[in-house]
């Protein structure tokens, strides 16, 4: 799959598969083309050439189907601060066409699992950031999507909450939801089943963290990433 903006090859002939229930890390330096690729996979933009399918749907012809079957969460796009927790759940559940009865039932269960019973009727804006992010993730998978896209979900979050967040990711993957995640924390790359590293629009590496470390003779993903991203020409642009 490629995406060009004029002469600029933002995404340059990338090829990969993500398995069902897999936690797939999507890494790259700033400007490597991650966001452009993710926008296509989320049905928000068309590729210039090549093929891609998400949850079995074609990125050219079935964008609306894709949107129905994916979840999305980023550090920036979160929930509505001036709605309560339950109102946010109701709103997102409603958008994805879940019935009122089911929203109520599953919403109550969700609030209990998160330990937010007492806060359920409080405005989301009053919650600490860590809770907001955990809630945002739960809302992103509330409609039980086949795959969830997480764009730097743990940026700025404290180290304990970051780990609790990954607990939730593992749990979702165990329930069969495929997880597609970007991060700047290289220890989190280790938590993925497989990792890609994009450099200048291309996929320069794709394997399990263990095999990548062996291939690049490094004892951490930090070292692997550094070796690959250092070669980038585009970061200076």
């Amino acid at each position, binding site marked *: 799959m490629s995406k060009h903006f004029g002469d600029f090859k933002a995404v340059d002939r990338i090829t990969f598969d993500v398995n069902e229930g897999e936690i797939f890390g999507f890494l790259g330096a700033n400007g490597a083309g991650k966001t452009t690729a993710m926008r296509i996979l989320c049905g928000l933009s068309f590729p210039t050439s090549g093929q891609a399918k998400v949850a079995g749907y074609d990125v050219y012809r079935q964008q609306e189907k894709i949107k129905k079957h994916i979840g999305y969460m980023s550090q920036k796009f979160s929930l509505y601060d001036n709605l309560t927790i339950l109102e946010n759940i109701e709103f997102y559940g409603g958008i994805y066409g879940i019935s009122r009865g089911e929203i109520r039932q599953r919403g109550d269960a969700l609030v209990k699992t998160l330990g937010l019973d007492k806060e359920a009727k409080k405005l989301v804006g009053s919650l600490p950031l860590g809770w907001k992010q955990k809630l945002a993730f739960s809302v992103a998978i509330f409609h039980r999507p086949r795959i969830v896209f997480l764009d730097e979900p743990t940026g700025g979050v404290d180290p*304990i909450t970051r780990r609790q967040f990954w607990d939730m990711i593992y749990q979702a993957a165990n329930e069969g939801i495929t997880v597609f995640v970007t991060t700047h924390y290289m*220890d989190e790359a280790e938590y993925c089943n497989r990792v890609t590293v994009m450099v200048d629009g291309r996929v320069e590496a794709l394997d399990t963290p263990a095999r990548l470390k062996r291939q690049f003779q490094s004892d951490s993903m930090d070292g692997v990433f550094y070796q690959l991203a250092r070669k980038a020409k585009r970061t200076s642009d």
Partner: protein
Amino acid sequence: MMVEVNNINKTYNEGEITAVNNVSFAVDKGEIFGLIGPDGAGKTSIFRILTTLLLPDSGSARVDDLDVVKDYQEIRRRVGYMPGKFSLYQDLTVEENLRFFATVFNTTLEENYHLIEDIYQQIAPFKTRRAGKLSGGMKQKLALCCALIHRPQVLFLDEPTTGVDVVSRKEFWEMLRKLKQQNISILVSTPYMDEADLCDRIALMQNGSIMSIDTPANIVESFPKNLYAAKAGDIYTLLKQLQGDEVVESCFAFGEALHLTFKSDQDADNTVKRIVAEQQLDDLEISRITPTIEDSFIRLMRENATETETDGK
């Protein structure tokens, strides 16, 4: 001392939100001092108080031996400030931005060029490009040049590396080390715990309070327990099992390994042997390791936790 902070407090929403809670610290001449902590720790409020953009509720602070309330005008001449949010003029070119900031501080680009030369050379090929069209790494370098152009005594850098990739982060810290050699004092904040080791001294912050202040080496050294790393093929199952083991005090994922402490370090070797035997994972390895700053941060957070939420078990 270039920066002295004494019992600063700051609240918002008529006292409803405590942003800074009784914070004191000092930064020496030519020192790189790091405020390390997640969003909401109070880092930005401290920066804004020290750069005279915000008044504290109580407490006092001095910058270059000037009072942040009384002498605010003079302080503004002597400090360089790089806010967390990119705040240069997007419609001006790289060079125009630099000349603008030099003029505002009554100097010229040429006069202090030697200070920014190393950094400016990296963005000079784009000097006619508008700042708004630069990549994240380039914007960061330009912002640093603009904060330096009037030869400040103290640099305040609020999360300069947030959202920046590993390569650019390394380059940025390389630049800070060079500035330190020019005897400029640097107060820098970051949410990335691995950057703490690059500071001379650090304050670990959470919810407006400082949990610990020291050199990174001393903070790690004062970790009160033996720390062990456990590795296995199925790390997630191992994590759940160890968190459920009653001899385990804490167990957290750290990249490819789990870091764990035991309730008691007496007879720890046998505890390790017992766990390895019980888990029946043929690829399980447990070994004693030196803690990192992140281990210390998590430990301090747990010790300070009043909310049950941040329990690692």
